[in-house]
């Protein structure tokens, strides 16, 4: 299954605001994406509670995986999103 490992760039980590932006972006893709920290259990990336439960701070490496058509592109765009400081940006489309 295609994967991307990326370091969380948001200053405050993958918590409420950056997490929401990320979860909304996943939901728009319509592809099942999972996220995990290290060797932890992968959780659905379109669930706010699941993403928050990871406790991923600034600088935490997270791994995304997805399957199916377009998975590579979806993962690229989501990895790109996480590698930006989402605290410093307006929510896209929100």
């Amino acid at each position, binding site marked *: 299954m295609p994967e991307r490992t990326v370091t969380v760039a948001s200053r405050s980590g993958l918590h409420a605001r950056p997490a929401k932006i990320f979860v909304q972006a996943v939901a728009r893709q319509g592809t099942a994406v999972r996220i995990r920290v290290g060797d932890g259990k992968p959780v659905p990336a379109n669930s706010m509670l699941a993403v928050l439960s990871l406790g991923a701070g600034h600088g935490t490496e997270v791994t995304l995986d997805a399957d199916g058509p377009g998975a590579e592109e979806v993962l690229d765009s989501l990895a790109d999103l996480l590698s930006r400081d989402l605290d410093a940006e307006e*929510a896209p489309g929100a």
Partner: protein
Amino acid sequence: MAETAPLPLDPRAVRLNEEADGRDDAIRRCGEVLVEVGAVEASYIDAMLERERSISTYVGEGVAIPHGTLVAKDAVHHDAICVLRFPGGVDWDGEQVAVCVGIAARGDGHIRLLSELAQILLEPEQAQALREATEVSDVIRLLQPSREEPSE
């Protein structure tokens, strides 16, 4: 009661029968409770409202987690949460909120707090128990972070 609470949840910060006239009013109530228990300065309340306007803190399961912006960290005296239950529900941009967990955290404290809270709410039975809690002790017990740690 010791001057500083060892747990981020002070029993005095649990309010089970709140009413609010909309989202902002509910957030103000959360902020006021955090002020009352000495966790934040009053200026933190405006930061909570500002954060909410920027992006909703609704997380699912009828729960919202209002908290301040990064700039407001200086208004935080110590990490704390408050739990306000709104039996009548609060309209939260179209979502129905039954419980607000207000969060005050300095530094990276919020990451751990949010993670613990999210892990609790991911269990539907626990989320329901929180929404329907009628005793402060029930809420405290539900939100004890160190009950069972999953084995690494």
